[in-house]
């Protein structure tokens, strides 16, 4: 069974696609959600094989969402759109396939065959993703978009990933690895990323450890493993 996630901001569009997928068979719909932020959360938890993704959604569009998914768990992506003459070409290049709403069953079956082939060959999907320019924070109907340059550091703990700004912090569904790869934030500890522009000083400790003090006065641990690369990034 192929595990599918449907992301579309319109209830009826989600339901219609789910109904069609059931008709075609061979597929389990693990979840359906209405926006990109929820989608990130669900992808991280459910690890679907395929993502049926609407292009136009509030706050974060489908393309932007792609850049926020961890490459390790990247599902195959099928874009679904009502009409977008300019983007159609981009779909063909970047994604497995695209579907036009209203979706025809026959067309969906073809997409499915293609997908089955890819999954059988075990080829991991790769989509060239642009750097992240806004980090979605919070959830529900209140999502804040934060410019990575304003972020002081990022901390992950058991409760999740926290974006820390000089004036407060908030929660994000993005993983540390995605943020490390797609933003200018640098790793200083297994659980920390730091914005080099916000570092006030690096205090070297015993046993090859160190401590970062940020301009806002926060203290961040630096592990032995990342100290060298951190030093390198500062050129000493």
């Amino acid at each position, binding site marked *: 069974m192929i595990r599918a996630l449907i992301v579309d*901001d*319109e*209830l*009826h*569009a989600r*339901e*219609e696609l789910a*109904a069609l997928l059931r008709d075609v068979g061979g597929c389990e719909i693990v979840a359906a959600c*209405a*926006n990109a*932020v929820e989608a990130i959360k669900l992808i991280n938890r459910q690890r679907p094989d395929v993502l049926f993704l609407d292009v*136009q959604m*509030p*706050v974060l569009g489908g393309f932007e969402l792609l850049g926020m998914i961890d490459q390790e768990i990247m599902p195959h992506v099928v874009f679904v759109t*009502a*009409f*977008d003459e300019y983007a159609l070409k981009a779909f063909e290049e970047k994604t497995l396939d695209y579907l*036009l*709403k*209203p*979706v025809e069953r026959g067309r969906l079956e073809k997409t499915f065959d293609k997908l089955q082939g890819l999954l059988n060959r075990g080829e991991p999907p790769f989509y060239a993703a642009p750097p992240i320019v806004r980090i979605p924070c919070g959830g*529900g*109907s*209140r*999502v804040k978009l934060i410019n990575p340059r304003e972020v002081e550091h990022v901390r992950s703990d058991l409760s999740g990933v926290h974006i820390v700004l000089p004036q407060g912090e908030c929660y994000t569904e993005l993983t540390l690895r995605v943020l490390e790869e797609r933003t200018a934030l640098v790793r200083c500890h297994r659980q920390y990323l730091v914005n080099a522009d916000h570092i006030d000083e690096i205090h070297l400790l015993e046993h090859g450890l160190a401590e970062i003090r940020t301009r806002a006065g926060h203290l961040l641990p630096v592990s032995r493993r990342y100290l060298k690369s951190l030093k390198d990034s500062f050129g000493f």
Partner: protein
Amino acid sequence: MKLIFALLQQMSVFLVIAYLFTKSPAFRPLTGETLRVRHKVLLYFVFSAFSILGTYFGLPVQDAIANTRAIGAVLAGLIGGPLLGTAVGLTGGLHRYTLGGFTAFSCGVSTTVEGLVGGLAHLYLLRKGKSEQVFSPALALGITFLAEAMQMLIILLLSRPFASALALVEVIALPMMLANAAGAALFISIMRDQKSMYDKVGAIFSGKALKIAERTLGILVQGFNQKTAEAMARIIHDETGVGAVGITDREKILAFIGAGADHHCPGTPISAEITRRAIRENRVFYADGVREHFTCPLSATCPLDSVLLVPLHVDNEVVGTIMLFEPKHKLFLNLNKTLGEGIANLLSAQLLRSRYEMQKSLLVQSELKLIRAQVNPHFLFNALNTIIAILRKDADRARELLLHLSNFFRKNLKRSCDLATLEEELDHVNSYLKIEKARFEDRLQVETAVDPTLLPLKIPIFTLQPLIENAIKHGVSGLLGQGVVRLSARQAGDEVVIDVEDNAGAFREEAGRDGLGMAMVDKRIKNLCGNRYGLTVTCAPQELTRVTVTLPAEGVAP
């Protein structure tokens, strides 16, 4: 006493000459509002002549001359300013000086001073903004009286021996002061009468021109064709009283009213070579019926003899002619010639306006087409997708939505006129909203509050739809939470105010397609209702965007 009568007698001769002057073309420049340098030179010669004549007509008294020389100098100053006054005074004075006598020098000086006094009075009136009083006889009387008194003083001061001067002044002072003052007053009153007669003729002329302008206004806006040309020709014929009036386009006669209308038939090609030449060479032709005659190419018995033929232009291109005719026994009045050329200008201006109006309405038509073409493909396909989904669960609701979709498109395509009632607009928008509501379900809430008495109000078509579409496309659809669109219409004083609000507060000034849609709505309202009406946008980011449509309370006149 004898001297007074003698001088008054002399002055009468002077006034006859003055009267003749006002009838001559040399007087023309004085009827205008401002004097050009050219006119001032002319006036210098005229008034200098008067001044010198005043000396010639003078009576010898005790080795001096009792005279009316001052009139020319003072009036020149009064009418033409200090420079002209001094120049005339100096000329008159120099002339007097050459005649000799013991007062020769003092008289020469005093005449110059008199011209200057007149000029200063002119300046004073100009500063006070009372330049029209230059032609007041009472003022001329006073100023000349004063100037003559000064002359007497100057004679006493400068002439030697003093005893002779005093004796002379005793004899001539009163007669000369009285005669010159009276002469200047009468002279100026003659000029004033003549001037007001010119003004009156001018007023009659302007009156006629304005009446023609008023009556013809708007006729040509309906186009330049036989029907409008005939209406124009009839009005011009009525108002000017000329023998006949003809209007042509580049090829044929469009209208002909008056004598000779029996054989100059509208719709027939232009036959007179003179008309074809006027069109070809783009110039005015005038046959006065005395030196040059109009020869009718159609009929030997045609009564028309003189003609004024003026081309009509639009943007420097000749589009036709207008012709004024007089029959053989009647003189072509100069007044009508000027009027005819004026009318041609007027018609040209109206033709230009009518072309502009036509282009403007074409523009509106094409803009409406554009708005229709703007129907967003996203909307259509999303609507169809929604209906297909609903069809699985609720066929009745799907049917209802399809009917709304069909109503929306029919309204979009069908309406060809510029105006619709508010009710029709709301119906159109309602179908649109029903579909969007189905698409977004709980995420979209629509609130309407329309004063039912406003439903029959005529408003420009496609006023509401683009605004509602923007509120959804750029407002509500970008929200993760609940979106609200509010539509309200109410009367406020002599205005009707329609608000379209959303709770997204995502308005940005855009030059793109949607900005264009709003700009078009605004422009069409301003075109139809005037600049105080139209759209205003208020935006509180993340909270609210409100587009307010202001229209006149009586709606738009069809």
